[in-house]
């Protein structure tokens, strides 16, 4: 049975491929142009592995049953060395691994070489959030792409090493501070897919997730135009809330009163905070702005100066929207009390 399995794979590459949209016992759905060849190689190695595994176990079981010790019986004599046999079982695996190596390398070259016309999206990883910057400067927390178009990701990290992993696309690439790494893919089916961080990065590693949204033909541009315009179409408070979530603020600052890596920003506006240098300040627009652009300048007592700067990463108008969002509870209570 195993041999048939192997033969099918060798001679009819697609015979075993299930409907790519469903995934198989081993693999998630195939949604990129390279997924098919990765899975083919996976199945090829699987067939070789199953063949050798079955061979080893069957031989072992047969020998155990056939040559099981019986009372008063000792081992039959047989040679303890056979050069021809030993060379054979050395050479056959050598040939097989050369074949596996070749296909693995060939597939890797396809994965490592983006087409010249790829659409470029900048990716930044930071504990514990992804952000995706589109060519027009718009930043989103999820990766939106058009279907059937090669996409190149140019990635960097604001803190430690992360790794961008989309199982449905079979791509993974480390995101390293201090350098740019690249990955590319071409999605073949509209839909939503999971994007993980695959390199351990601390407390929130397992929640450093995002969605890849693959838009049907023609819809990506419409989405991008609409999304990019959020500062104009949303109220400042709503825009601020969106930014607060999309840009990773929530990873360290809660809005429910609990302290995380940073202090909670629930009702932060107007609050008196004790600083690590012993002084006390009242949180106002200037303090919020300074904390975004120069986070280490005045740190609230009890917290580490670990926040990365957003200098150059947030526009003025965006900072104002965030201030408006943080100010909203204070404004509301002012409104109700007066």
């Amino acid at each position, binding site marked *: 049975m195993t041999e048939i399995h192997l033969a099918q794979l060798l001679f009819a590459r697609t015979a075993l491929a299930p409907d790519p949209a469903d995934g198989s016992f081993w693999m998630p759905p195939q949604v990129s142009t390279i997924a098919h060849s990765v899975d083919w190689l996976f199945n090829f190695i699987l067939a070789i592995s199953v063949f050798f595994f079955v061979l080893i176990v069957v031989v072992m079981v047969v020998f155990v049953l056939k040559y099981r010790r019986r009372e008063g019986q000792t081992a039959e004599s047989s040679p303890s060395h056979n050069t021809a046999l*030993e060379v054979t079982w050395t050479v056959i695996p050598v040939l097989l691994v050369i074949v596996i190596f070749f296909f693995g390398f060939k597939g890797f070259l396809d994965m490592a070489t983006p087409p010249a016309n790829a659409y470029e999206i900048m990716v930044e990883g930071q504990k514990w959030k992804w952000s995706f910057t589109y060519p027009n400067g718009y930043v989103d927390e999820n990766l939106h792409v058009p279907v059937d178009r090669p996409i190149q990701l140019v990635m960097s990290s604001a803190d430690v090493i992360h790794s961008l992993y989309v199982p449905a696309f079979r791509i993974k690439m480390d995101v390293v501070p201090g350098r740019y790494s690249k990955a590319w893919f071409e999605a073949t089916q509209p839909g939503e897919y999971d994007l993980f961080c695959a390199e351990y990065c601390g407390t929130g590693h397992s929640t450093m997730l995002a969605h890849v949204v693959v838009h049907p033909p023609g819809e990506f541009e419409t989405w991008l135009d609409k999304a990019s315009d959020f500062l104009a179409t949303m109220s400042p408070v709503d825009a601020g809330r969106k930014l607060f979530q999309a840009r990773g603020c929530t990873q360290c600052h809660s809005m429910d009163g609990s302290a995380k890596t940073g202090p909670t920003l629930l009702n932060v506006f107007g609050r008196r905070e004790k600083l690590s240098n012993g002084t006390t300040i009242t949180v106002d627009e200037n303090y919020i702005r300074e904390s975004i652009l120069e986070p280490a300048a005045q740190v609230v007592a009890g917290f*580490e100066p670990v926040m990365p700067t957003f200098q150059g990463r947030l526009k003025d108008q965006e900072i104002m929207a965030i201030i408006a969002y943080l100010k909203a509870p204070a404004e509301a209570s002012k409104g109700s009390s007066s």
Partner: protein
Amino acid sequence: MAEAISAPGGGAGVDHTASDDNYLTHGKGILSWLFTLDHKRIGVMYLVAILSSFFLGGVFALVLRTELLTPGQTIITADSYNKMFTLHGAVMIFLFIIPGIPATLGNFVLPLMLGAKDVALPRLNLASFWLWLTGATVAVASIIIGAVDTGWTFYTPYSTTTGTAVIPMTLGVFILGFSSIFTGLNFIVTIHKMRPEGMTWFRMPLFLWGIYATAIIQVLATPVLGITLLLLVAERTLGVGIFDPALGGDPILYQHFFWFYSHPAVYIMILPAMAIMSELVSVFSGKHIFGYKFIAWSSIAIALLSFLVWGHHMFTSGQSGLTNMIFSALTFSVAIPSAVKVFNWLATMYKGSIRLAAPMLYALSFLFLFAIGGLTGLFLGSLATDIHLHDTYFVVAHFHYVMFGGTVIAFLGGIHYWWPKMFGRMYSERWAQLSALLIFVGFNLTFFTQFVMGSHGMPRRYYNYLERFTAYHQASTVGSYILALGFFVMAGYLLHSLVAGERAPANPWGGATLEWETSSPPPYYNFKHDLRAGDPYDLDALRWDPEIKGYVRKDPGSVLLSPGEAS
């Protein structure tokens, strides 16, 4: 001199019943153990210490698996989980599996297999045990002052910026490294200088070949780990920019340094296991080992090739495509000697007379599990598939099949094989079978499920996970409980055997290597006579003696060196 202290009843050859004055009773009190120079006692102390580490690492593993019963929080927080998996990895690797077989069984058996009184450098041997204790204490003490949350790999810049106790843990590992180097050095010298009359290099038991190959790696690779960890400490404490890009360093450089040690270290773990396998398969098949020279050379080949494959841990790190290609190709080369060994062990069983005693059950388990562990390495050595599988549970499953399914299983086989020699007692065969079965079933349930969830995209080191992985995680956790039960059964019957086990004969299994030419347990001085070595796999030279329920040499004089011959 040995003649003068021959035990009562001893004529020519071995005493089949142990004297009351053996190495266990020779010298009383805790200090006679702690400062002993006797390789056997050092081996036994290592065994206790290393199995305690295994227990500790196992408890961490059970906490992890229990936490993973449900997505989100089950019993502990994300930060505790991260510390727990780091401790599980660090304890299992640096305290348990790297010293594991060489320090325990190697220490006990190696000089006996050479017919020698001790290792070449007994004081260094004791020093390496004390270094192990010191390093282990420092590493475990890091738990008290906050533990470490970096993963056992200490990747920068996470490890240089996290607030946890990285320095105590890395210093502990640094000290443990010296223990490992000293042990390796000692074994190399001992094997070179203390082989008995008749034991040419190609008449050495394959156990010694495996330990020798391991020792080469210990001596050559471990210093790199030491230096790397010191650089890490220098960066954390002094702010010297080596690995952290914020200080002008390169985080990928750390990975190169780290894996330059830690990949060869994988073979520090598996070579001694293969070494045990060669003894078990031959003795319990009642057959001469098949293809002795291929097995011996494959150990050396593995030791050398192991230095050339570290980059396969870094296929997604952003290293160049050319580098990836070279490391992928070299990685496949190291698969071949392992495959050759497996085929040789199978061929040894051909036309044998196979006894399914506990050590052989572990040897058969090893063949089954190591086959899976080795073959799944092909998926990871191949570039296109590794990109998808890297840092997922597929990798976790792969290395547990190799490290646990391979090394730990062979270690257990070795413990069951030499237990009668070490303690002079037989354990309950029936309970041993039950325990071996539980471990085999529990292990496969725990880790096979991890292959499937990994290839579906479940990343490793995840505290939380998506709903669709729940069934796999729960099956895996149930498996880990069965596995733990197997180990509790084992602890039970092994401890029971120490007090109530049947007395072991000198040679219960019919092995032809020299450690069986002395009583069980051996006397303090190991052998009554100077010995000469013959073919270590000439099992036909032995016959079963029903009276003593053990094996005896058909010609007892064949292994004795007459006084005039001694060089």
